[in-house]
């Protein structure tokens, strides 16, 4: 486990529970919205992190997902559309001791907020970003989003005017922006989501999790193949460090490299064995493998990788800045205001 700056609850203090993290506000999402599950898992893992509740801050933009902070009995700021990464950076910079979480949607993070998103990744503040990807604008009633597939029918692309834009792959974008921790999970895969949330917390640096989330009202079942029990074993592949990429209900299929392209092979018919499969390396500094895995979800008929694509340790912005300050103070002493004001050539009139 990496050293985190966030303070820990003192030994012996009463332990927190899930309920300590529930605020007094009624949770307001549509029935069956995937957001409920993500909220519940977050409230479940937080007491297990060993940090005091008052050190936790949730920052969000605007969207259905961005109402999240209101339901957390922690510090929270429901800011403006797309700008949560900037505000979160300020919160963290001013107090590196806080555990800062950004809650965002596919529109919030990748449409209006795309620039802050990529810049947050490259600065590597120790912030955790949870992107609730439902491939739609929920709050504004169902327009297509930057992750909607080309040809989506939506309120802004009604009959005769399907969407024309090629979607972003959030994982690829995060990797290209220099993200040091990149993972993917699913709203209702509780036993997968929780460890991912914890791993994001434990990672020192910006952690990004794309969470496939169902919008029951405006984009129901867009992730049916990756979400539902009966499909998911054939349409997702779990990434585990050091393990070959095996999947399928019978764990009989694997991913092999064919040139530079992924290929699904049957590991039971004798042609290939697990030896031929790609072995996952989440700690690789080079992003070629992670990029390759990211591309799979854009490739027809490929299972979508779930888990940690990349996890590497790079210096965090706030630490580098704190160091600069410390070094400067060591070099020239704590700032002396009197001396500063009187700096340079002065003269005295009496």
């Amino acid at each position: 486990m990496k050293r985190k700056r966030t303070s820990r609850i003192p030994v012996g203090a009463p332990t927190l529970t899930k309920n300590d993290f529930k605020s007094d506000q009624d949770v307001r999402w549509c029935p069956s919205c995937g957001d409920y599950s993500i909220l519940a898992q977050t409230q479940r893992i937080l007491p297990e992190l060993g940090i005091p509740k008052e050190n936790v801050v949730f920052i969000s933009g605007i969207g259905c997902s961005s109402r999240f902070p209101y339901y957390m009995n922690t510090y929270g700021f429901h800011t403006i559309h797309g700008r949560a990464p900037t505000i979160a950076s300020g919160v963290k910079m001013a107090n590196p001791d806080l555990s800062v979480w950004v809650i965002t949607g596919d529109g919030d993070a990748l449409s209006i907020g795309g620039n802050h998103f990529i810049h947050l990744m490259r600065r590597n503040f120790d912030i955790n970003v949870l992107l609730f990807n439902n491939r739609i604008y929920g709050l504004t009633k169902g327009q297509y989003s930057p992750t909607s597939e080309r040809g989506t029918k939506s309120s802004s692309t009604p009959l005769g005017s399907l969407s024309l834009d090629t979607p972003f792959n959030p994982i690829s974008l995060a990797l290209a922006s220099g993200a040091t921790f990149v993972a993917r999970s699913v709203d209702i895969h509780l036993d997968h989501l929780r460890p991912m949330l914890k791993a994001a917390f434990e990672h020192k640096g910006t952690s990004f999790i794309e969470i496939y989330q169902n919008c029951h009202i405006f984009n129901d079942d867009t992730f049916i193949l990756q979400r539902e029990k009966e499909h998911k074993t054939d349409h997702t592949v779990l990434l585990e460090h050091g393990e070959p990429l095996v999947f399928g209900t019978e764990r009989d299929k694997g991913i092999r490299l064919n040139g530079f392209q992924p290929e699904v092979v049957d590991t039971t018919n004798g042609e290939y064995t697990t030896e031929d499969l790609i072995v996952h390396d989440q700690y690789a500094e080079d992003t070629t493998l992670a990029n390759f895995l990211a591309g799979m979800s854009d490739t027809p008929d490929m299972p979508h990788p779930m888990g940690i694509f990349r996890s590497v340790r790079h210096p965090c912005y706030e630490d580098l800045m704190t160091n600069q300050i410390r070094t400067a103070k060591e070099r020239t002493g704590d700032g002396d205001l009197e001396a500063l004001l009187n700096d340079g050539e002065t003269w005295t009139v009496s």
Partner: protein
Amino acid sequence: MRKPVEQIEAATILFAGDSGDGSQSIGTQMTETTALIGNDVATLPDYPAEIRAPAGSLAGVSGFQLHFSSEQIHTPGDLCDVLVVMNPAALKMHLHKLKPNGILIANTDNFARRNLRLAGYEKDPLESDALTKYQVFRVELTRLTRKALETTQLSMGEIDRCKNFFALGMILWLYNRPMEYTMKWIKAKFAQKPQYIEPNILALRAGNTYCDMTEQFAVSYDVKPAPFEPGTYRNIEGNMATVLGLVAASHRSELPLVYGSYPITPASDILHGLAKYRNFGVVTMQMEDEIAAVGVAIGAAFSGALGVTGSSGPGLALKSEAMNLAMIAELPLVVCNIQRAGPSTGMPTKTEQSDLLQMFYGRNGESPIPIVASSRPFDCFESVYEACRIAVKYRTPVIFLSDLYIGMGAEPWRIPKISELPEIKPSFAVSADTTNGFEPYLRDPETLARPWAKPGTAGLEHRIGGLEKSDVTGHVSYDSENHEKMVEIRAEKVARIANDIPPTEIFGAQEGEILLLGWGGTFGALRTTAENYVAEGLPIGHVHLRHLNPFPNDLGDILHRFKKILIPELNSGQLLQLIRATYLIDAIGLNKVQGQPFHVFELHAKIDEILKEMEHF
């Protein structure tokens, strides 16, 4: 035999040349020296467009004007006593600023055909009759510098870059100023490149000696020190004063300063300046854009720091959505706007005061934000400090308005004692006082400020945001009456800041014919004008507003004591519009939108015209 020295009260000098000719640096040196020997001084750098224009072209001319005096002065002067031009383009651009019979020093070596053509001269103006009304000194500045430096190891190009110090040497002679300060500066400046120290000093000396020797210069001038209040002084540019004001506010409030910014002319210097003070715990973050810049400042404020952002023109337009968030979230935040000439990209290296109404109204919905404007270079210190004080006390974003003219201009500043600085007390919430738990919108009954509870404080966990909030509890509310109440409270909170504003000072007549009402960087021109009329015994007053939102409580009364209110502004009449609407007074505007400050004579002309009309009726 020493040439005669004439005592004079004041002088204005303008150095002008190609961007590469170093006018800015010798201007600054002359200013430093002049300030150090005790004159009052005011400066006006005049940059060309941001991008380098071809050498010798009109667009490439860079100028630096300074005005110094044995009396208190407030402006860099209207017309010049001395104009130093390094090439024909500089002459073309600036000759009209030279007083009749003024001294023109021209580097004749640069008046060759190509340069004349670039400046649009058919023939050499130095040879023509056009200059007969001036005292023209033709100096082979380049050749003389080369000669003086011929023994150095420098290349010809390097030698030529020293010629500005030759010119400075001449001016120092002309005004009987010592060369030592400049020499000291040269040594410090080239500490890393010592091969340049000696040559530049040689050039300086050569220029000085040249004047002593040549018959061209028969007389030199002396300007005695000006009377200053007792104290320790330094020379300071407006943007640097802003930097120091912010560091001081951070220091005094014990709030760490987080400055988020995105580079833009002329605000970048604040970023550059603050970045040097890591030892004061100052965090500067160059962000991806102006929105991110204000975003980090807001986040820092939420975290309990002094969040500040700064920009200019188009950058402010981009920040408006987030400023509105800070307003409704009622977080302290200081937004510095170093105004430049708009609209749109406009003229980024020219000055203007045309963002006032944008600062008042450039946000959706009813979004009152206090505004504090600085009036002169050194006043940036106090004004930005005041902006920080209000932000922290009232938990509100505050706009600090400055402009390119005062941001880049310099003048002597009496350095304040730390103990003189007003108190800034963050008074963070530490516990929930009510039985209902912590109520983030339960206000201080006097200031209407809400509590500032830092993340990390146990028991004060709470959520805020941009949706309308219920009074006291801060929960999201769509209730009609609550909304109206909150709109009123936010307005009232800003209005109450007026209770902190000291009584307005009226310079000159306390009532009478004309009140000059101004704000921001026009202070110098207005005060000088008022002084002139007052000296003549005319009942003219001058009020210069630091607080623009809210207005001082006594402003209405004061306005009604004068027959006419004249509001000169470097815009099309923005304060004018506010004053007319607020006080229903038929105030008159004097508006100049040329990217340039007022000349005192322009104000005189307008006032004389009004006085004449008043006699008439």
